C-alpha cells in the first residue's frame, strides 16, 4: 500500500450506535409497526362498543373495553340465515381439520416412504408429475371433481371435504416425507431388510418413529393450511359443514343494515386464533415447515 504515511484513527472504534445502525433500527421499527398494525387494530376494535368506534379513532385504545362483541361473535352473529355465531364454523373447521390432517399425513408419508426407499418402477415420474401439478390452480379441477363426487353419491359432505384435503395435500406431504426419508442413512433401511422386516413393518416400526420432526412440520403445515382454506370448504363441505373462514366471510360481508365492526373483528380474530397459536407456539418449526413445503406455497 502506498498510503503508509497517512495517519490512522487511533481512537477506539465504537461498535455501539453508528448512524447506520440507527437507520437500521428505525427501518426495523417502522416495518414492524406496519406488520403489527392490523393485529393491533383488530384487537382494539373488537374490544370497543360501536358508539366508540363511530366517534373515536381507529388507533385509540378502547375507553371502556368490553368483551360483548366477542360473546356476540361466538354465539349469535348471523352467518347468512342462521344466527348462531361463529362457533358453528369453529366446530365445523375442527371436524374437517382433524381427520384431514391425520389422513393426509398418513397417505403422504406412506407415499413418500415408498418413493424414497423402494425403487419402484416409474416412481420418479409419479413424483415429478406430483410436483408439477401442485402448482395448478384449483379452478382447473374443481368442476370435474364436483361432478365425480355427486356421481359417486358422496356429494357435498364431511367425507368429501376430508378426501379433497387429502388429495390436495398429497404433493406437499409426499415431498416432505420423501425428502426426509431420502436424507436418512440408507444403511438403516438395509439393516431392517436384512432383519427380515417387510414393507409396512419398516414403515411403521422404523421410519415413522424416526420421522417425528417431519410429522411435527407436516402437522403445522396441514393444520394452518386446512384451517385457512376457503374455496375447497365452500365448494365441497356442504351447507351443514361450512368451515370457519366461509362463515366468517358470511358474517362480515352479507350483513344487512348497519355493520357491527367490533363483532366483525372479534369473529375475524377468533378465526385467526388457531393459526396464530400454532404459529407463535411452534416458533422455528413453522419456518421449517414453509421452507420444506415451499414448493407448493
Amino acid at each position, binding site marked *: *500500500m502506498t*498510503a503508509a504515511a497517512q*495517519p*490512522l484513527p487511533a481512537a477506539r*472504534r465504537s461498535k455501539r450506535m453508528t448512524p447506520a445502525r440507527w437507520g437500521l433500527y428505525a427501518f426495523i421499527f417502522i416495518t414492524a409497526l406496519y406488520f403489527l398494525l392490523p393485529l393491533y387494530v383488530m384487537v382494539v376494535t373488537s374490544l370497543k362498543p360501536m358508539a366508540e368506534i363511530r366517534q373515536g379513532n381507529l388507533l385509540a385504545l378502547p375507553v371502556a373495553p368490553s368483551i360483548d362483541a366477542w360473546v356476540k361473535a361466538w354465539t349469535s352473529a348471523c352467518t347468512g340465515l342462521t344466527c348462531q355465531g361463529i362457533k358453528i364454523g369453529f366446530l365445523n373447521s375442527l371436524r374437517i381439520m382433524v381427520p384431514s390432517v391425520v389422513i393426509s399425513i398418513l397417505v403422504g408419508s406412506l407415499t413418500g416412504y415408498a418413493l424414497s426407499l423402494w425403487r419402484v418402477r416409474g416412481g420418479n415420474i409419479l413424483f415429478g408429475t406430483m410436483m408439477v401439478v401442485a402448482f395448478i390452480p384449483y379452478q382447473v379441477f374443481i368442476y370435474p371433481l364436483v361432478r365425480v363426487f355427486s356421481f359417486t353419491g358422496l356429494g357435498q359432505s364431511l367425507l368429501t371435504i376430508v378426501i379433497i384435503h387429502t388429495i390436495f395435500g398429497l404433493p406437499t406431504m409426499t415431498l416432505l416425507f420423501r425428502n426426509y426419508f431420502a436424507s436418512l442413512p440408507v444403511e438403516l433401511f438395509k439393516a431392517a431388510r436384512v432383519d427380515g422386516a417387510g414393507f409396512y413393518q419398516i414403515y411403521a416400526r422404523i421410519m415413522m418413529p424416526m420421522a417425528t420432526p417431519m410429522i411435527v412440520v407436516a402437522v403445522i403445515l396441514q393444520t394452518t393450511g386446512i384451517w385457512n382454506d376457503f374455496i375447497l370448504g365452500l365448494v365441497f363441505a356442504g351447507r351443514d359443514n361450512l368451515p370457519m373462514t366461509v362463515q366468517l366471510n358470511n358474517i362480515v360481508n352479507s350483513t344487512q343494515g348497519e355493520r357491527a365492526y367490533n363483532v366483525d373483528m372479534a369473529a375475524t380474530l377468533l378465526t385467526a386464533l388457531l393459526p396464530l397459536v400454532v404459529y407463535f407456539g411452534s416458533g422455528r418449526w413453522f419456518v421449517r415447515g414453509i421452507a420444506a413445503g415451499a414448493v407448493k406455497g
Partner: protein
Amino acid sequence: MQKSNVDIRSLQIGFGGLKVLENLNLNVEASEFLVLLGPSGCGKSTLLNAIAGLIDVRGGEIHIGGRDVTWAEPKDRGIAMVFQSYALYPRMSVRRNMSFGLSVAGTPRDEIERRVGEAARMLQLNSLLDRRPSELSGGQRQRVAIGRALVRHAGVYLFDEPLSNLDAQLRAELRVEIKRLHARLGATMIYVTHDQIEALTLADRIAVMQGGVIQQLDTPKKIYREPVNRFVASFVGSPAMNFIPGRIARDGETGFIAGANRLGLNGYAFRGLPTDAPAVLGIRPEHIELTASDDPSAVSARVEMVEPMGADTLIWCRLADNTAFSFRHDADAQVCVGDTLNVRFPAEALSLFDEISGQRL
C-alpha cells in the same frame, strides 16, 4: 512492493465469556515467513483475523509497518488475505474477482489491468481469467484466491489454512508455489496451518500455539530438534516422538534411569543445573540407532511390530520394563517380530522434560 513488519503487543481477544487470546506478544520481521501452527481451536484463526482487523480486540495493540492499526479498517492496514474456503465471489469471473476490490477503491483502469496481468502471470491463471469460480478445480480456485490477494500489493499477506481443502498432491504443489512466491515477492507472510509438514517446509519461523498461548517461536529446525516442552515435542514430528518416563540421576555422571536401564547424558545440553528428579525422556524415532550388544550404552528391546513405510521402516519395540517406543530404519532392515535388538539413544538427540511442568530441562 513494501515489506512491513507486524508487531503484536499484549493482545487480548475473547468471545463473550470465553477468553481466546490473553496477553499475546508476537513480532514478525519484515519479509519473514511466519507459520502459526497448532491444534484445532487453539486460536490461530482468531489471531490472524485480529491482524486483518476482522474481529475486534479487547486489549493490546497491533502495529503493521510501524503504524498502530489496532482500530483501523481491514482495507487500511496494508494487508491481503487468503481464506480456507477460497471465498471467491461466485458470480464474477476470475478477472473480476481479482479486480473488483481495486476498481471499487478507484484504482485507475490501466493500473488494475497491469496488476491483474502480473498476478495472473505469476500464478499461471492467464487462460482462466474469463471463467467463473464454479468452473475451476480446487487448486485453481485457491490460486485465484492468492491472485486476488496479490493484486492488493500489500505489505503483509495472511493465509488461513489455504491448502486444507485440497488433496495431498495438490497441496504439495501449491506449497511449493507459495514458497516460490514468497521468495519472489519478499513480502511478509503469516500462514496458519495445523499441518506440520507445511509448517516445517514453508516457515522461516514457526509459532507453535496451544490454548491461545504461543508455546515456542523459533526456526523449524530448532522447533524440531529442541522443543521447549512436551506439547511442542509431541505435536511436531511424524511419526511422533517417543516418550519414556524415568528419572534423572546424578550419581557421579548424570544419567537417565528408566527401569533397569541407565542412559548416560553426556552431551545433552541442559538448560539449567540438572537435579535428581522424575523426568520424561523424548527421542524421535529416526534418532535411535542400532548398535552392537557390547556397546556399553546399548539397550536391548524386543520387536513387537514392523511397519514398512516405503523409504524406511518403523519398528515398534518394547523394553524389558514394558516401555514401548518406535524407531525408524532403512527399508532393507531384516527385522522380524520377536527379534531382540540392541539400540542406542544418542544424548545429543534427546529431549528431557520435567515430569510435572513438561518444560525442557
